[in-house]
């Protein structure tokens, strides 16, 4: 028995998008099906944003779009046309780690580091609204970010420390 039918493979026209990533403007022609995370990784060569699950569960692909944390594996590049995106590469300022990056490092909030960029951007969104989150609020804010190495304990510490660091600035 045959298991697959032949799909339609009619050529689809590329679409022009203009996306500002970490302050830099990228004007490109993209396939309509190109995911935002593929745009970031393959078109912009910003490989700090990762793919872990393909289905919006793990949040390794989390970036900021117009200041909001979104999962870039679940969004097409064309949907981000005209948007401002911040990826992990955009966090440091003049070569210096930002308070969230520093806090993750100081708290041993990462091991393999694969989930860390997404986690730091979710943290960014949380702390922008709530600089002194309780542990419960932290858990909720990163519920969509899976970490398989740390057991989350040091991530909770890192996020609390990051909040304190940011207040100190």
């Amino acid at each position, binding site marked *: 028995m045959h298991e697959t039918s032949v799909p339609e493979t009619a050529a689809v026209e590329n679409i022009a998008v203009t996306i500002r990533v970490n302050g830099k403007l990228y004007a490109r022609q993209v396939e309509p099906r190109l995911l935002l995370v593929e745009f970031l990784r393959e078109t912009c060569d910003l490989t700090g944003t990762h793919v872990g*699950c393909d289905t919006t569960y793990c949040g390794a692909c989390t970036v900021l779009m117009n200041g909001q944390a979104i999962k870039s594996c679940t969004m097409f590049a064309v949907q981000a046309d005209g948007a401002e995106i911040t990826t992990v590469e955009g*966090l440091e300022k003049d070569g210096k780690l930002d308070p969230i990056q520093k806090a993750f490092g100081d708290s041993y909030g990462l*091991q*393999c*580091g694969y989930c860390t960029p997404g986690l730091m951007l979710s943290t960014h969104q949380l702390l922008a609204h709530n600089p002194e989150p309780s*542990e419960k609020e932290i858990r909720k804010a*990163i519920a969509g970010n899976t970490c*398989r190495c740390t057991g989350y304990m040091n991530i909770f510490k890192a996020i609390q420390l990051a909040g304190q660091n940011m207040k100190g600035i």
Partner: protein
Amino acid sequence: MVEEKEKKNGGRWVGASLPRKEEDRLLRGRGKFADDIKLREMTYLRFVRSSYAHARIISVDTSAAEALPGVVCTITGKEIAAQTHPFIEIAPDHIQKVRDYPMAVEKVRYQGEPVAAVVAESASLADDAAELVQVEYEPLEPAINAEEALLDKSILHEEAGTNRVWSGTWEFGDVEKAFRDAAYVVTIDHMHFHRFSSTPLENNVVIGQWEPKEDRIHYWCNNSFPSFAIQFLAAHLAVHFDRIRVQTADIGGSFGIKITSYPQMSVCALASKKAGGRPVKWVETRSEHMVSSAHGNERTFRDTRVALDKNGVITAIASRHIDDCGAYPRYEPLGCVIYSQVFCGTYRFKNARIEFTQTVTNKCPVGPNRGYSRMQHLWFLERVVDICAYEIGIPADEMRLRNYIRPEEFPYTTPNGCVYDSGNYPKMLEVAKKLIGWDDWKKKQAEARQQGRWIGIGIGTTLDSGTNNFGQSQIINPYAPFSGNSQGANCKLDVYGEVVVAVGSCPQGQGHETVSAQVVADVLNISPDLITVRTGFDTERNVHTGFSGTYASQFAVSGLSAVHGAAQKLKAEMKRLAAFVLQTTQDDLEFGVGEQGPEIKARSTGKSINYWSLANIVNVNSAVLSEELQDVTLNCRYIWRAPFKVPDREKKYGNLTLTYSSQLHIAVVEVDRDTFIPRILDYVAVDDCGVAINPAIVEGQVYGATAHGIGAALMETCAYDAVGNMLTSTFSDYTPITAMNIPKIKYGYISTPSPHTYSGAKGMGEGGAAPIHTISAALQDALFAEGVFINDSFNNGDSIFRSLQQREGGQLSNLVRMEKR
């Protein structure tokens, strides 16, 4: 920058919780993971996978795919079989006839098995083309359940004639006498340890390039045991070992799962050859990972009989264990012997008979998942201890104290000849009880029970055996050419005097760069900041042995012993050279840091030479060297070998592991009376890995292993339906533990230094899957009064509801029986 004040243990860097050297690049998004690599003319590979668990392949038609513009080539299982040898089988006898290729040839044997692959100019074109491949199947009867598979009604590998992979009996002491003399005999009919995977967040990635004219293969990948992969690939592809170059960089978790990516490595190389030597990249999707990467071993325990004396001290255990390794043995049947590293767990019983059988089934092949093969056995032992305690009426903590190996008995030789280096289990219990507030919880539990709530307190005691004696493979197959264990490292002063360390490991977040620097810093008496460490495997760096990789809780022992050895070797050369230059004796020399950086000083004269000058003499100013110093290179390779002997193959007796870290966890769990969902109310993890090289890294490993265990106990299972469809093929179905589900973990530690290692450290990281045992124990405590025995390692609201229903239907009454003599 690390600060001097961080030094611990009398001014040593070892023992200090230094910040990790790895952090900076990872925090900036500048880590180098395999999928980040782009090469010129790179092509992209996509697999076409079986939708059936067991079926004959009638035809594979790739013509439509090949006709799609942008497709470079396709490759099928038949093509691969025509130009390669089947992979090596570790099991002897009939299993040697199994023809395991990286893609299905005549038959598919699990859902998700690759049948064909397409290679295209882009990843999305490869996706399109893969959908055009037409495969015709004739479905066959699947063998999904291990015990049914052993009936051989439907055989996976006809050439082997049976589904049984291996069987053997471990018998020590006088089991029959122990049963005759027993005051109690407890029988447990059936227990089951479920299938799960620690699912690293980064999927498998392979880039393979095989220049047809050069006969060399170059891999960039995230395989976590490249030395093993290369041995399998070299024989399979008929390419010399040294012509297979494997490079790894940052790896996004492995937990053992990435050890078994060599079949995909084979396909990428063969596809590259067919594509004229263009690099071929394969990036696994999460669903591919779930259905076809590797799962942990599933195990069933049958006919368990336990003999106890009148005090509840276990005197003998007899049991049949049936291990399910999925469709192809691959790394197996090593798990059939690796369990016996912890044969008696943390307990003193001397008489035991374990009949161990492994079978193939039409499910994803297994791989050495964190806690590999020992956790299944430790869970079994912990269930035995708990069930016996309840049956006899001894509190779970008291039961353990009566049965634990005593602190004064270390080093302790187990019934099968393993030597437990050090430990203090009663002390760990004491620390854990204090941390959780044992007496308080006991009171609260009694009150809650009055209110009809189901609250249980459970203890799990486990071992994390590290640094394998690969000689144990000869217990499986006397012709297996493996024994001992080794690791390589190189330590050098580079041309300008920089200290550069290279190790044959491929860490996935364990901080090898940091801890290696700590070790070398102590040897040379300089700051770890002044030391560059290169981890990640690279065949051409020439620091690997046949055992190099990162697996099996051993880096603190094998890796750092190699680093330490290389540093000592370098130091000895530096001393000889400095004594010559400074015109003094070696005893007069002092290592440290002066105004011109790291240096060696003559105490008598105050004269010194810095590292730059030392390196200069050897590398670019060598005419000044004396005749006796011609052998000095300041580039020192050292191979550390573990002090093992080949075990007695017939008796299955001998030391199988060098170090034994231990874990003791306590959990308080409540089962909701309406939803039956278990919830953790309190959790403590106490660890003992001897001397911790970097206590903060150790603590992080404990948290991580604990989260994996909690996830596995309550949320994560690789579920299959009756015909072998995998039901948990996405994260949304598999539900890896999240920040919402993890309880607050209270961490404690004790330290019993290992007498078997130079530093007193014991390998750690796998953690014995302690939470699975602990949560099972807590659930047992919560539900014993309801007549429920916890006999499965996976428990969620659904399974607990079923157990309670079965109990009401009287179906569980024969599961456990106790006979008092």
